[in-house]
């Protein structure tokens, strides 16, 4: 393994002190002179035609400065799949029709929040209610009403994958089984409710501060919906209080803030309430997964046929990507020589489902992992052994998808079995106790370009100064995961300088280099990291040229940047301080500053990702036989994220993933009735607290990813997948209840135990 000085070290976060002091400014913390407060009116009905909207009373209310409806805005649809315009199905405000409870109908901007709120109550909307379709079966039924006119049948995306010979595979299998799994919707539940503040500059250009994971995407989609030029819009991401996939599209509040700022000439800020977040916010896709798998007697996988329907809610949002990725996740992790996938994304009259940490993997892998355990049991093979037998290894090719480069999957399974003392523990379980295993593989960013960007996937600019400091500019978006710190670590390592020597400016579309597709799909470490590294290497080339000339060094000498100096490799006596060498470069360039640009775009990397993360997790649970309450006693995790850039950051990602996985498995769900979300607060939406967190032990598997910056790849999103299947499997061993319908509730456990008695 390579030796690093700063990468791999517990460097405190770049922003930790500001956050600890309460000095970090989030969008809703900002106020501008003359600022108006915006509020959005959502539909109270799930599916209806809008017959009329009367805003006259709202407009007449003193203090109200602007009221808009769909009739006032350009009729331009948006969506993240710009390459396929027919998938762009959303207007910022409803035009003619509403499709879910909360679908945005009108917006007001007023001098204070109370006035804006009062104005909302004065808007009269007349609806003609239509039949509501609240589940996939109703939506795809023959003759069902079309939720979108362009899409009769309500299936908006079909995705098929096939390789090998699936029928032959099943024919050659000794053991074939079919199972249907249902997984439910959960909330991102980021702590910071969405907020957007727009200002129109004196020249008519717009500046938008917004809690987003994707400033560049917001810039582009805002430009198209406002009929403005992209670069007349500046999107700045201030501190963001978590995203997890829920802040990665253009959203109505961003559009309305910008549009109403233009209309009024005054800054306008919108901040959603927690109730609005729960009632109308994006959520993880509920899915039905039908999976048929074939094995040889010895546990070797032969074939898999996977059919998934995604309950997309009222709009596509990131559903097309989730549909696509589900097909790939279904074929990841294990070797499936024959594979077929059919995914369908279906509209329903519910809040749109979208990207959420794992992006299809938690659902897909729940089905594969539970099915693997079912098969292992039927074949009389230990779940650990059947996984080791089928595990993907470095060099494996997934047809059309990728060739797996670094892969610590087998090592992860072995490590987690050892940490948990799997075989012994399994034999020594007390009544009511169970252990279970879940595994994952995940992408390190997508290679697909459905957004159709003309720019590199990630970019960085590095400015080196003669005082020894360096300025890093990148559009990579730190939303709490810590990429500002990781990017600085990579740069400091490469240039041999200290973290404190680097200033970072990030995620401002007017000043940071174009472009970056944002913080999602676990793409930032690998992609933005490579862009930073590329820029750093270009800086070094210049420095090496200057110092070679200065020392009149033999051209065969290699130079290095280390400990704040530049020197011929291993010859510290010839060292010159970093800043002095920067000055030499500048002088040789007749004053031109030393600036370099770095880029990364994955090319020739298949259809999905340049690199995969892997891991395995074991859960130990205790289930109260009287109440059915599950107590998770311990989690063991072994994972492969390539080079660990920041150990505390990685551990934090892991612990956070366990919290989310625990909620997904056991406690979190939306309670829905006729399209309405009934639990719209944190009291009724039950997210795990500090009291619920089990002790956890972690092993990092040491691998080096050739495509990653300094060997690094994804971490933290893949880990969203294994927790639910591991807990579910443990619950099965504790109670006999095999959960094929998440979440696992005491009610389901008790019912199953009663049936089995």
């Amino acid at each position, binding site marked *: 393994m390579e030796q690093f000085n700063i990468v791999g070290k517990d460097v405190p976060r770049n922003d930790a*002190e500001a*956050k600890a002091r309460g000095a970090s400014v989030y969008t809703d*913390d900002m106020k501008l002179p003359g600022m108006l407060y915006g509020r959005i009116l959502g539909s109270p009905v799930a599916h209806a035609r809008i017959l009329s909207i009367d805003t006259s009373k709202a407009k007449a209310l003193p203090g109200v400065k602007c009221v808009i409806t769909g009739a006032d805005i350009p009729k331009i649809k948006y969506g993240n799949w710009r390459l396929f315009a027919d998938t762009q199905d959303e207007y910022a405000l409803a035009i003619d029709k509403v499709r879910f409870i909360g679908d945005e109908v009108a917006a007001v901007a007023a001098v204070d929040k109370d006035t804006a709120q009062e104005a909302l109550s004065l808007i009269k909307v007349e609806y003609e209610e239509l039949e509501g379709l609240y589940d996939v079966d109703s939506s795809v039924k023959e003759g069902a009403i079309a939720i979108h006119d362009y899409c009769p049948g309500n299936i908006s995306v079909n995705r098929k994958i096939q390789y090998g010979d699936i029928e032959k595979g099943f024919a050659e299998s000794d053991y074939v089984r079919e199972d249907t799994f249902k997984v439910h919707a959960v909330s991102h539940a980021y702590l910071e*409710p969405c907020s957007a503040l727009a200002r129109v500059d004196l020249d008519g250009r717009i500046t938008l501060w917004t809690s987003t994971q994707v400033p560049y995407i917001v810039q582009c989609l805002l430009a198209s919906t406002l009929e403005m030029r992209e670069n007349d819009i500046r999107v700045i991401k201030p501190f963001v209080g978590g995203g997890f996939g829920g802040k990665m599209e253009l959203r109505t509040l961003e559009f309305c803030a910008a549009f109403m700022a233009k209309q009024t000439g005054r800054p306008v800020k919108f901040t959603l309430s927690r109730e609005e977040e729960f009632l109308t916010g994006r959520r993880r896709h509920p899915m039905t997964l039908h999976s048929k798998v074939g094995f040889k007697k010895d546990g070797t996988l032969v074939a898999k046929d996977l059919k998934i329907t995604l309950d997309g809610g009222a709009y596509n949002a990131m559903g097309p990507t989730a549909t696509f990725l589900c097909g790939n996740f279904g074929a990841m992790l294990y070797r499936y020589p024959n594979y077929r996938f059919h995914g369908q994304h279906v509209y329903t009259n519910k809040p749109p489902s979208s990207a959420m940490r794992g992006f299809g993997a938690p659902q897909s892998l729940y089905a594969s992992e539970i099915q693997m355990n079912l098969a292992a049991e039927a074949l009389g093979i230990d779940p650990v052994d059947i996984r080791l037998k089928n595990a993907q290894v470095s060099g494996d090719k997934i047809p059309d998808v990728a060739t797996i480069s670094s892969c610590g999957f087998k090592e992860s399974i072995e490590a987690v079995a050892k940490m948990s003392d799997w075989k012994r523990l399994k034999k020594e379980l007390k009544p009511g106790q169970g252990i279970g295993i879940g595994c994952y593989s995940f992408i390190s960013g997508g290679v697909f370009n459905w957004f159709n960007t003309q720019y590199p996937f990630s970019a960085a600019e590095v400015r080196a100064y003669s005082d020894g400091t360096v300025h890093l500019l990148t559009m990579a978006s730190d939303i709490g995961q810590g990429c500002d710190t990781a990017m600085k670590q990579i740069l400091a390592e490469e240039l041999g300088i200290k973290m404190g020597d680097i200033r970072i400016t990030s995620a401002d579309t007017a000043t940071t280099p174009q472009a970056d597709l944002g913080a999602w799909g676990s793409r930032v470490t690998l992609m933005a990291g490579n862009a930073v590294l590329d820029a750093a290497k270009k800086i070094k080339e210049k420095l090496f040229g200057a110092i070679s000339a200065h020392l009149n060094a033999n051209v065969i000498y290699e130079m290095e940047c280390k400990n704040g100096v530049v020197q011929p490799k291993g010859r510290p006596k010839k060292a010159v301080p970093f800043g002095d060498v920067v000055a030499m470069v500048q002088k040789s360039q007749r004053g031109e500053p030393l600036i370099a640009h770095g880029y990364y775009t994955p090319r020739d990397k298949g259809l999905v990702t340049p690199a995969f993360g892997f891991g395995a997790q074991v859960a130990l649970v205790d289930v109260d036989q009287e109440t059915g309450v599950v107590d998770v006693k311990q989690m063991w995790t072994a994972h492969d994220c390539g080079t660990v850039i920041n150990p*505390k950051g990685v551990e934090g990602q892991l612990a956070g993933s366990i919290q989310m996985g625990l909620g997904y498995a056991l406690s979190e769900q939306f309670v829905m009735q006729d399209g309405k979300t009934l639990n719209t607060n*944190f009291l009724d939406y039950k997210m795990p607290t500090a009291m619920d967190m089990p002790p*956890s032990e972690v092993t990092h598997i040491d691998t080096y990813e050739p495509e990653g910056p300094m060997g690094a790849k994804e971490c933290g999103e893949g880990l969203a997948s294994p927790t639910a299947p591991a807990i579910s499997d443990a619950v099965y061993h504790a109670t006999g209840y095999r959960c094929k319908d998440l979440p696992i509730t005491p009610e389901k456990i008790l019912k199953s135990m009663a049936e089995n008695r």
Partner: protein
Amino acid sequence: MKHLIELKVNGDVYSLAVDPWRTLNEVLRDDLNLTGTKLGCGSGDCGACTVLVDGRSVSSCLTLAVEVQGKEVQTVEGLAPSGSELHPIQEAFIEKGAIQCGFCTSGMEMSAAYLLSKNGSPTDQEIREGLSGHLCRCTGYIQIVDAISEAAEKMKQS
């Protein structure tokens, strides 16, 4: 009708005219620009808005501004006034990696301050109980519990 109140926040006294329905959270954030105190839910469920009133932790989103007339309010900005050294709780949060997105941080720190003022050597279980009114979606709480444990040690030594 607005009420005239005197609010003592982080040692400074402010004379304010506030509507009787204004929450302490609104007054701190909107009137006093003390935006270190966050608003995560508005219903007292997430703990992001926690401040100390006369030394006790309260949800500022559920506390009316008129209720705290004449009482001492401490916010995260008062934990270590800007420019001064960090409070041991803040130091520990930074060192232990207890901060990710940071939105829950100030509330967590204020509850930690309350907990440690009552119990200088809390067990992990007591810390978890002390945090049970707080939600965090990033950290899984583990590093936060570690940080508060570490802060207790630091405060004992100083």
